[in-house]
Structures are given as structure tokens and as C-alpha cells.
């Protein structure tokens, strides 16, 4: 009995997931078509870029600072075990550039900007503002969705590049403070072992995560149903979908990228 319920729940969940995945894919196709040739609203793009970057900068900076600290503490355990202070800069830098920086900053970005975006689009949808746009012969995809996708991709890319730097400085700060390491030890450990490839690897991930967050948050925003309760559900569904996309894409990109 309970087994049946669980199985049918999983079945329903799977069907639901496929439907949403299909919807997101269709939206992605529409966005790509609107980009060739680019048809998008300049003022709307700059408004979103400013808002999204500006709104999330403080929380991302704080997150990055502490993430740097966490990485160094983890590395510090290894240092004490193996007595290998020369590896801290390398280990923390490698982890921050390739994995932890892009992923954690993307998760925070999704919580801050993605969920806000879903709430805004969902409110517009339930109050018929999207139909209002169509009635003005303005296609909501190039006007509303495309600028947001570009803005989120660009701003997450910038935030990750900036956040990585802050994380490294945060890491250096805590390494000097907690592990009594010299700045120069950390610096040479980093620059001797970390190459451009590690940086590019993380930057590509950031851009892909940014567009994934944008697609999921826009999709759940414009396909919302059922008033104010629907808006809350849409936000919840969007952040969950964004988290799943981030982790699965991270896996795929790790396998594909050098």
C-alpha cells in the first residue's frame, strides 16, 4: 500500500519533471531564435543588468569571503597531517576556481536573483501583464525573457570572476590568521600550480550556470498558474530546478571541459 503510493508519487514526479524539462527546452529554443538576429530591448537589458548585479553583489562578496575561509580550513587539516604548507594555495585555488566558487556563488545567485526574477515574472503573469504585452503586439520572449537571460548570464559570470578573487583573498586572510602561513607561500603555491585553464574552466561553468538559472527562473515565472499561492509555488519550484540544473550541468561540464 505504502509502496504503491510511493511508486505512484515517483511516477507522477517523473512525468512532471519531463513536462517541465520539455517546457524549459522549448523556451530555450525561443530565446535562441530571438537572438538570431538579436531582437531585444536595450533599456530592459540595462535595467536588469544593473539590478541583478547590484542587488546580489554584497551577499556574493560575503559568501565568497567565507567560502575562501572554509576552503583554507579544510586545506589546513591536510597541512597539519602531511606538513605540506606549500599545497594550501594550490588546493584552495584549484577547488575555488573549478568547483566551489562557481557552484556556491551560482546557488546564492539563484536564491537571490533567480527567485526574485521568478516572483516578478509570475506576478506579471497572474495579473495579465504578459497578455497586456502581447496585446501591444510586443512578443514577451524577446522583450522580457531574452534581456533577463543575457543579464543573468553576464552578471553571474562577472560575479564568479570577482567572487573567486574575493574567495582567494579571504582564504589568504584566514590562512595567515588561522594557519600562520606567509602570504608569499600561498601566492607562489597558487601561481605555480594554477593555470589559465583552471580559471577558464570555472568561468565557462559560471556562464552556463547563469543561463540555466535564467531559463528555469523565467520558465517557472511565465508558466505560473493560480494567483498568489501559485507565485509562491513557482518561486519554490524555480530554485529547486535551478539547483538540480547547476549540479547536473557541473557534472557534464567537468567531464567535457579540460
Amino acid at each position, binding site marked *: 500500500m505504502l509502496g504503491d503510493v510511493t511508486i505512484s508519487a515517483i511516477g507522477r514526479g517523473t512525468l512532471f519533471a519531463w513536462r517541465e524539462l520539455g517546457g524549459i527546452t522549448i523556451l530555450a529554443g525561443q530565446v535562441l531564435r530571438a537572438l538570431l538576429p538579436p531582437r531585444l530591448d536595450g533599456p530592459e537589458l540595462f535595467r536588469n543588468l544593473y539590478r541583478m548585479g547590484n542587488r546580489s553583489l554584497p551577499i556574493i562578496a560575503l559568501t565568497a569571503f567565507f567560502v575562501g575561509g572554509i576552503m583554507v580550513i579544510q586545506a589546513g587539516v591536510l597541512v597539519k597531517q602531511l606538513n605540506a604548507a606549500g599545497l594550501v594555495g594550490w588546493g584552495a585555488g584549484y577547488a575555488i576556481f573549478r568547483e566551489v566558487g562557481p557552484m556556491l556563488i551560482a546557488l546564492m545567485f539563484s536564491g537571490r536573483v533567480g527567485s526574485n526574477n521568478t516572483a516578478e515574472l509570475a*506576478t506579471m503573469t497572474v495579473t495579465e*501583464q504578459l*497578455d*497586456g504585452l*502581447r*496585446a*501591444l*503586439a*510586443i512578443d514577451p520572449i524577446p522583450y522580457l525573457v531574452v534581456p533577463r537571460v543575457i543579464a543573468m548570464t553576464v552578471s553571474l559570470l562577472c560575479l564568479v570572476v570577482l567572487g573567486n578573487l574575493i574567495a582567494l583573498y579571504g582564504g589568504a586572510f584566514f590562512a595567515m590568521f588561522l594557519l600562520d602561513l606567509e602570504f608569499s607561500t600561498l601566492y607562489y603555491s597558487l601561481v605555480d600550480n594554477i593555470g589559465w585553464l583552471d580559471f577558464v574552466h570555472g568561468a565557462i561553468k559560471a556562464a552556463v550556470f547563469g543561463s540555466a538559472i535564467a531559463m528555469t527562473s523565467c520558465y517557472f515565472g511565465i508558466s505560473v498558474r493560480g494567483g498568489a499561492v501559485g507565485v509562491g509555488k513557482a518561486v519554490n519550484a524555480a530554485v529547486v530546478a535551478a539547483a538540480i540544473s547547476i549540479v547536473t550541468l557541473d557534472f557534464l561540464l567537468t567531464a567535457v571541459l579540460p
Partner: protein
Amino acid sequence: MTSSATPSSLIEFRDVHKAFGAKRILQGLTMEVGRQEVFFIIGTSGVGKSVTIKHLIGLLRVDQGEIHFDGERIDNLSEKHFYPVRKRIGMVFQHATLFDSMSLRENVALPLRKHQGLGTKEALAKSDELLERVHMGNFAHSSPATLSDGMKKRAAIARTLAMEPQVVLFDEPTTGLDPVNARRIDRLIRELSDDLGVTSIVVSHDLPSIFGIADRITFIYQGKAYKSGTRQDFEQSGDPIVRQFISGNSHGPMETPGF
């Protein structure tokens, strides 16, 4: 009134059916709207008046039947091909649907920028003019959230006029407004038709509005055009269902869901 298309008719619904799931709303609606008329679609709530006009700009699609606009069939157009039609048919929604993130003049400037090829400055200047025409000039810089419903509706009319449409659809333009503001909206609709040659289709159950400005009226009942005619035709009608509606009597032969 003839049943075939006359050269003067601009919009024509032919045997239109529309259902939402098991709920059948339109069940063979046929009607014609003439050029530069103020045309009213009336009926009780939930009878499908708003549903009817949303078909004209492709927000809803017919299940069966045809819709013609200016000699062209539009019910089978793709979403992409509907955009040219939407430039010619504007719509003022029941809840105005102004964009919250913009001031009134930015709202009105949006279609100007998008369709008339104006730069931001020119578009804003022109939008001030349009807001002046609907007597909202003093509120050009206000955000929609701070305005009353009547003001929002007038701003929404200005935004629709920015498209320079041939036809404007009004979804319950006077519902929820006090009588003074309602008559102001009525006067605006009449002026559009008389001064600018716009054809207006108004969805309403507001009797003073109907008998104040309508050129012709279609009364929708049970998914069909139960009666079409001029104001005088309706005032003089002896049909018991029409009489019940225009007298606002709760008792009578009319069957409404839930009663």
C-alpha cells in the same frame, strides 16, 4: 440586418465555438461589427464576453468556426502572424495591466518605441500628449500602483492609442468605477469613434454605459448571439429574456449557472 458579409462590416464571427475543458462557453456565436461603430457585447457575468474579444487578438483560439477581420481570416493565424493584427487591434484590459515597473509615461512610450520607431525622448514627449488626451497629463510621472482604478484605465487607453489602432477592444471599462468616472470613460470611447474613426468593441454589463453610447449591441446568452440590434431595438424589445437583463430583474426566464 443581413446575415451575409456586407462591405461595411469590419469584423465577423462565424459560428464560433470555444470550450474550456468540459465547460462550453461559446456555442456557435455569429456576429458582425461595422466600421467606426461603438459596438457593445453585453450579457451576464461568465457568459463569455471577454472570451469572445480575446479571440480577436489571438490570446485565445477558436475550437471551431471562423473569425474575419477586414476581409481576412484571422482565427487560423500562427502566433507569429498574429503580431501584425495586434498592431491594428488594441485592447484595454479589465484590470488595465499597466507595467508596475514603469511610470505612466514609460508605459505609454513602450509601444511608441517598439512600433513607431521613435527614440526614447520623442516617445516620452508623444506619450505626454497622449496622456493629456485622456486627462492624465498631471500624472505622467506617477507609478501605476499609486493610482485609482479609473486613472489606470485612462492611462491604459492612452497606451493602446499609442498603437494608432483601427479597432480598440474594451473589457468591462466601467466595472468597479464610480458613476462619474464611468461616464468619463464612456465619453472617451465615444470621442475615439467620432473624432479618430476608431471602431470600438466594448464588453459590458453596465446599463447606463450601454444605453449611453452604443451604436449597436449584441446580447450573448447561452453561448450564442441571442439578439443583435441598435439601442432602440433593445429598448423597445418585447423579448422576456432581453427585458429581464435590461431591467436587472432577478426573477425571470433567464437561466444562469448556479440558479
